[in-house]
């Protein structure tokens, strides 16, 4: 598939000189003034042409946020964030508002091409009706700073009854669905960053998979922070009705900058009886330079609710970017025999800090969860796994298996494992295994003796270490993730 080769080329060109997504795109932007207050929220809501209820929802979130404090329990360290020194809305200036790809600013399309995103699909390039193309394609929603600029394959999806559109559009077009589910998995005042997001979220994706439908293609969103001093607050809501299946991919990059940029997303997933949602992320936000200057602060709340019996939500993440990552994709296992999975690779190098993990809340009888976490630390970085497994009194015969492995490269980095286990049902079983290892000198020498460069050797060993997680990713993503791992660990040995 053309799109895949393109991605690989992009990734390969990176190996030469570090973070290659660091370019900035010159596009005329429409900014809200810096700062956060009710008027800014009104402005965002107006720009999005939102109904009154949405504005009220935002204002309520804002009021809650004002009363909250930034959390400081995570093992991350950063100078105070001045929330009044950010733009909360930035959008490419539009002529009339793009209705189709042809109307999208060519500069933007060029940028997505640079990123290797299969935005303008081959079918469209060839002038073929996208509906006649087979379902092996990936539908893409691309979010540029605060707005969604193009959603592809709309027509094919609609035929299957799947709704996949920017959330701002969903608020206008499908208000009942949005009202019914928004904020039900991550309540407005769940935490400081979720409240902030609820007040100012600007875009993100909305997916609705009707009863019994297997989504005919993988859905994908690419996030890009471009503008300076701009926070990105996207909001994603995925609803899988009874018996439906969907696989959703998320990828992220940002330009290279000296100042830190804030990213505070909220993702909510809802799975009804027998529904399955697979959510995969390859996060490659700019991590800052080798001295720890710049980089994205990534404070994200992701949570899935397995509401139906035998429903399943699976999170797979490969986190190589960001200066700071604060992220705990979680599952609330309400349904009987529901299943939650969390597969994670988190890489930190140089001065990066990651505090990431998951929460599995078992409520339903016979609910099961699996946690496989692979943390890799290099340079002077710190990598923490923080996980909670909670068995409520109702969770008879529930099961959890957790495997947490840490790999250290060099001796100036840190790996920490913080598992919390709370069991209030005597029939529930929780298993936890943890290992810490180092890439040994003799392993590197063995590889080099066979002809591999030191970096290739590290890449090979790291990929081996992460195999159990990488195999959970959809094929194209897995290849990309492997290359990313090698790139982000460049210069970490010797």
């Amino acid at each position: 598939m053309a799109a895949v080769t393109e991605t690989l080329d992009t990734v390969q060109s990176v190996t030469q000189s570090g973070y290659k997504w660091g370019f900035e795109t010159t596009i005329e932007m429409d900014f809200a003034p810096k700062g956060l207050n009710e008027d800014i929220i009104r402005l965002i809501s107006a720009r999005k042409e939102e109904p009154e209820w949405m504005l009220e929802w935002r204002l309520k979130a804002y009021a809650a946020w004002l009363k909250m404090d930034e959390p400081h329990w995570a093992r991350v360290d950063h100078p105070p964030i001045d929330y009044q020194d950010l733009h909360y809305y930035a959008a490419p200036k539009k002529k009339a508002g793009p209705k189709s790809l042809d109307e999208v600013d060519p500069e933007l399309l060029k940028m997505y091409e640079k990123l290797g995103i299969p935005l303008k699909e081959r079918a469209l390039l060839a002038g073929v009706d996208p509906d006649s193309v087979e379902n092996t394609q990936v539908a893409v929603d691309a979010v540029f700073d605060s707005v969604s600029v193009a959603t592809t394959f709309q027509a094919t999806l609609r035929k299957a009854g799947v709704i996949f559109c920017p959330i701002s559009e969903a608020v206008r077009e499908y208000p009942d669905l949005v009202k019914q589910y928004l904020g039900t998995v991550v309540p407005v005042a769940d935490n400081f960053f979720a409240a902030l997001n609820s007040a100012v979220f600007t875009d993100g994706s909305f997916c609705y998979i009707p009863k019994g439908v297997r989504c005919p293609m993988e859905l994908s969103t690419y996030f890009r922070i471009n503008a300076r001093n701009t926070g990105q607050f996207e909001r994603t809501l995925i609803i899988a009705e009874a018996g439906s299946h969907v696989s959703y991919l998320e990828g992220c990059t940002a330009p290279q900058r000296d100042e830190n940029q804030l990213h505070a997303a909220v993702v909510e997933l809802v799975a009804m009886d027998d529904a399955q949602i697979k959510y995969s992320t390859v996060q490659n936000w700019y991590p800052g330079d080798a001295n720890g200057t710049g980089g994205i602060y990534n404070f994200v709340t992701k949570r899935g609710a397995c509401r139906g019996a035998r429903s399943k939500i699976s999170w797979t993440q490969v986190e190589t970017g960001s200066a700071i990552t604060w992220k705990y994709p979680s599952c609330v296992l309400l349904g009987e025999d529901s299943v939650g999975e969390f597969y994670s690779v988190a890489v930190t190098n140089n001065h990066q800090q990651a505090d990431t993990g998951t929460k599995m809340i078992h409520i339903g009888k016979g609910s099961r969860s699996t946690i496989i976490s692979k943390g890799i630390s290099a340079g002077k970085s710190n990598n923490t796994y923080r996980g909670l497994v909670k068995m409520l009194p109702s969770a008879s015969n529930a099961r959890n298996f957790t495997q947490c492995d840490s790999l250290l490269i060099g001796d100036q980095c840190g790996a920490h494992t913080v598992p919390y286990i709370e069991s209030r049902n005597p029939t529930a079983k929780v298993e936890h295994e943890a290992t810490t290892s180092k890439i040994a000198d003799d392993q590197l020498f063995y590889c080099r003796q066979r002809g591999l460069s030191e970096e290739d050797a590290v890449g090979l060993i790291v990929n081996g270490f992460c195999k159990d997680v990488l195999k959970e990713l959809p094929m194209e993503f897995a290849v990309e993730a492997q290359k990313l791992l090698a790139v982000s660990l460049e210069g970490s040995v010797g």
Partner: protein
Amino acid sequence: MLDIRGLAASINDKPILKGIDLTVPEGEVHAIMGPNGSGKSTLGYVLSGREDYEVTAGTVTFNDVDLLGMAPEDRAAAGVFLAFQAPIELPGVNNANFLRTALNAIRRAHGESELDAVQFLKLARAETKRLAMPDDMLKRNVNVGFSGGEKKRNEVLQMAILRPKLAILDETDSGLDIDALKIVADGVNALRGPKFSALVITHHQRLLDHLVPNRVHVLAGGRIVRTGGPELAKELEKSGYAGLIAEAA
């Protein structure tokens, strides 16, 4: 031709090799024998560029290039292969993938085209078959859970696929059953030719029955104390090293 002159090396400031002179002409197989701890493995590591060892004196040239100035991977590309006395485990790293990456790195260094997965598997399967190894050896993770003998065989498989110009086999025969021993010897014999030379470190005459060396050297206390023809190995089998070492001291 491998030419070692006055080579001295130490680890953690402890001198191990104390002046080695050794020449292996192209096309020849030389055996190195000697008591435990005499520096045989150290010699293999120094020749292949392990960084913990400090070369304090001497020179090593291989086909007229200075080996000591090269990184381990560049030596590998130049044709140096070390079969480890204790092969290293690489958890999660598939043997076939490892070998293909290695082979392609070496091919790249020679300006040759890389092999894709299909081409490589064809080549690798032919070698596993020739060496009477099960195919699943390729699918398993490098040396993980391999028995002692399987690890040694895997080293020979790697050698057969990478086709070095200079193979250093460090006790590759230890721990092998009689059939495997013959297979290992055949593996080396198959590579023998005018452009191939080998240093075979061993404690046992029985390998040298199948893999007849041009010369046999005895390394003791960091020096070569005796050199002879294949008959020297037989002699040592009977009389041991004690006399030799006393003689040299």
